[in-house]
């Protein structure tokens, strides 16, 4: 429990946690508060916000309820953000551990592959991947993970390189444990903390990348996305700018919340390190 | 002999994670102008704290009580006589040499520049004159190839050479007081003796007052007129060097002397037939 208290030390962490809680609530409550298809027509087109209380944020170009779209969009952003980050962390941790533990040629090859993935701009890679395979939620998650795994991989490898010299690893070798088993049962769990420290940054980047992909029309067409909403609002930018501005504000607040919460976690663990 | 510096009842406490740790618990002593005073103690004795307090380099979070009174000579050629005793200016009146030569120099700035900037700041010299002065100083501290050294960077020098540079920078503006805080502790034994010799020469040449802080009472004895012994933040003994070494009055001083093994001490082990 003290760890939680440490996390809440800074006002930034509290703000971040609050924002994230709000976001999760929005995502979970969406089908309850706004049942039915959010992309269905709910009223007259281009109704301004704060005029009709059944349509608090107004309607878009086709008459869809903006508030409903906002809530449902939260689901997509959250789902993609978390899934892509989890995938990137998993792939990165595995690759990094293999490279760091095996050493030699395997390490060289894996590191060159990592270099290659870092050399190609991750957004272009995601663009190409979604364009070729086809836009759906799973593909978008995979596309983002393809660009994001390199960071965790390098961190994991660096950790493993220092861990593998330690006594308990030598001990496991003496017992006769298979190297792969040692790598994934002894070494990887201890290499995880710095890798997990990257998670908030990766989640934030994933949310932003998903928004950009949706903005360019590469999001899942069956789902409401904030990026898609912004793209739609672009056509009526002069007359109804709020259609593009509102989902953007939602994005900023969400990503900000992720960053702040992430920094709060880092602060909490950093304090612990300095005390010990 | 006029007292340059009067310390009365000096108390210093550090705040660490909410807890106050007392480093000095009421130390009083006087330093005469032109004398060489050694301050001896083990780790935790507060000797470095005393040095930093005298120089005014304690961190802002430190709590200081007591008095430090200065009687500085008026500036030669000053247009006005100060109406009240002035406070010492770091670099100009006090030169400070730190323990670790590797970390007291900026790694990305050339040696010459680091010495020259001190001369520029306090003596109002232009860069060209400041560099000339730096070269003279490098010669005074017996560094070979002063021209090359001016352009060199800290990582290209050995520990002893770096410490000579640090000393040169400390005396660049011609201070009246030189504080050497464990200036030899991070160096090899032979280099230690060289640096002590150098300090003795420079102090004599410039008529500086010397505060030599060390844990090595024997080393200090080769250099100092008087020795002050600190233990757990308190002044335990203070006297002429000869008297302290030959007839220590306090038990702690005796134990410090006993712990020192000189080459003229009787061998502890009889090596007849035994091979190490």
């Amino acid at each position: 429990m003290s760890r939680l208290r440490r996390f809440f030390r800074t006002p930034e962490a509290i703000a971040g946690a609050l924002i994230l809680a709000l976001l999760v609530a929005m995502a979970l409550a969406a089908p309850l508060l706004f049942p039915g298809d959010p992309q269905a027509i709910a009223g007259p087109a281009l109704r301004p916000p704060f005029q009709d209380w059944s349509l608090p944020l107004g309607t878009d170009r086709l008459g869809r309820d903006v508030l409903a779209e906002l809530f449902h969009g939260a689901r997509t952003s959250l789902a993609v953000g978390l899934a892509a980050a989890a995938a990137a962390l998993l792939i990165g941790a595995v690759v990094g551990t293999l490279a760091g533990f095996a050493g030699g040629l395997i390490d060289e090859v894996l590191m060159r592959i990592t270099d290659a993935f870092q050399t190609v701009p991750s957004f272009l890679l995601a663009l190409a991947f979604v364009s070729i395979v086809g836009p759906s939620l799973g593909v978008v998650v995979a596309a983002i993970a393809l660009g994001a795994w390199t960071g965790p991989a390098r961190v994991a490898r660096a950790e493993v390189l220092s861990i593998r010299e330690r006594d308990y690893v030598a001990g496991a070798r003496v017992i006769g444990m298979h190297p792969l088993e040692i790598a994934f049962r002894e070494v990887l769990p201890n290499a995880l903390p710095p890798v997990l420290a990257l998670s908030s940054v990766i989640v934030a980047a994933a949310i932003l990348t998903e928004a950009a992909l949706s903005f360019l029309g590469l999001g899942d067409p069956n789902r409401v996305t904030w990026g898609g909403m912004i793209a739609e609002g672009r056509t009526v930018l002069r007359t109804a700018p709020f259609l593009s501005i509102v989902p953007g504000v939602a994005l900023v607040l969400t990503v900000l919340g992720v960053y702040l919460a992430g920094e709060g976690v880092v602060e909490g663990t950093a304090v612990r390190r300095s005390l010990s | 002999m006029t007292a340059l510096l009067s310390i009365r009842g000096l108390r210093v406490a550090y705040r660490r994670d909410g807890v106050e740790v007392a480093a000095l618990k009421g130390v009083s002593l006087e330093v005469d102008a032109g004398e060489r005073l050694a301050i001896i103690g083990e780790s935790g004795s507060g000797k470095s704290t005393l040095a930093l307090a005298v120089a005014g380099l304690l961190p802002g979070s430190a709590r200081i009580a007591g008095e430090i009174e200065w009687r500085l000579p008026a500036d030669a050629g000053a247009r006005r006589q100060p109406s009240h005793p002035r406070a010492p200016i770091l670099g100009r009146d006090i030169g400070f040499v730190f323990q670790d030569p590797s970390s007291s120099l900026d790694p990305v700035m050339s040696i010459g520049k680091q010495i020259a900037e001190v001369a520029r700041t306090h003596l109002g010299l232009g860069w060209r004159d400041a560099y000339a002065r730096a070269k003279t100083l490098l010669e005074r501290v017996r560094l070979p190839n002063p021209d090359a050294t001016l352009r060199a960077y800290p990582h290209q020098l050995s520990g002893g050479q770096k410490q000579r540079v640090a000393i040169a920078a400390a005396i660049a503006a011609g201070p009246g007081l030189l504080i050497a805080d464990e200036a030899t502790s991070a160096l090899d034994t032979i280099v230690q003796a060289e640096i002590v010799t150098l300090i003795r020469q420079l102090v004599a040449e410039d008529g500086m007052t010397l505060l030599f802080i060390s844990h090595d009472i024997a080393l200090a004895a080769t250099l100092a007129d008087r020795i002050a012994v600190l233990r757990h933040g308190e002044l335990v003994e203070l006297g002429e060097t000869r008297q302290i070494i030959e007839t220590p009055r306090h038990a702690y001083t005796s134990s410090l002397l006993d712990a020192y093994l000189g080459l003229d001490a009787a061998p502890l082990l009889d090596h007849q037939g035994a091979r190490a």
Partner: protein
Amino acid sequence: MTRALILIRRRLVGSIFVLLIVIIGSFLLLEAAPGDAVDAYIVSTGGDAGMIELLRHRWGLDQSELTRLANYLWALLHLDLGQSVTFSRPIREIILERLPTTLILMGSATALSFGLGSALGIYAGARPGSFRDRFLSIGSLALYAVPGFWLGLVLIVVFAVDLRWLPIGGIESIASGKTGLSRVADIAIHLVLPVSALGFIYLALYLRMMRAGMAEAWRQDFVLAARARGLSRRRIVLAHVARNALLPLVTMLGLQSAQMLGGSVVIESVFAVPGLGRLAQEAVAGRDTPLLLGIILTSAVLVIVINFLVDLAYAFLDPRVGASEATA
């Protein structure tokens, strides 16, 4: 000079490997795309089964995968990136046309983000914990959370639509026939908003890095030693602390180039700037996989070159780099 040569040699070998992996990866992606160049060609031009087979044979698409890979590599060696489906022109030509615009955009945005970002970072880091430090810290975090394309739209709404100070998009006024200095000025005006949008996002990054770097540098012992030598606070901040904190930022410049290329895709789309990024979006819209992969390859080369230049700059700034090898 020897330090630089050692770096060059080492980098060159590594980069070739990386490029090879990128090329093979691109080839695999090309293969994974449904339909091939002939299918795309037929869609726009029409033809029967016999024609399809003829074209397949002519273009070597009926051969084994390995042979096709070899052909692909051979073509690349001659800097032949193939033919674009949507534009029916050599890809190399199109890319070279669009490349300078993107380079200008990226270069200006980098200058803005790095210059202004580090300056503000120094300003914040000069007094850690002060009000301006915390303000800039939170502010930069909020800025970093802003999606680039959304910032672009907001800037358009405010400056182009409402205030009408700046043009909405494009790189220059169409058919104005301007030349020389007035043309440069025209392009510059058009670039203000896109450069701002692209630059402000990454400004936050450099600001935070500089701030963190300054906080780290303040803790270094040589800062205490500098104070002990009586140097003015201003000199310590600028000549010592900032100079040391700058080094990791220079490394970041190289790493950021890849991200900024990605960012230019959306920015160029929003502002209708005819650069490489916009070309990528057009390639996606037109399902022009060869063009898209050509852009990816070009980007990879660009990133490698930029990283290399940055490393050279870093070696110049940090006298400790390569020292052990150069003196050997």
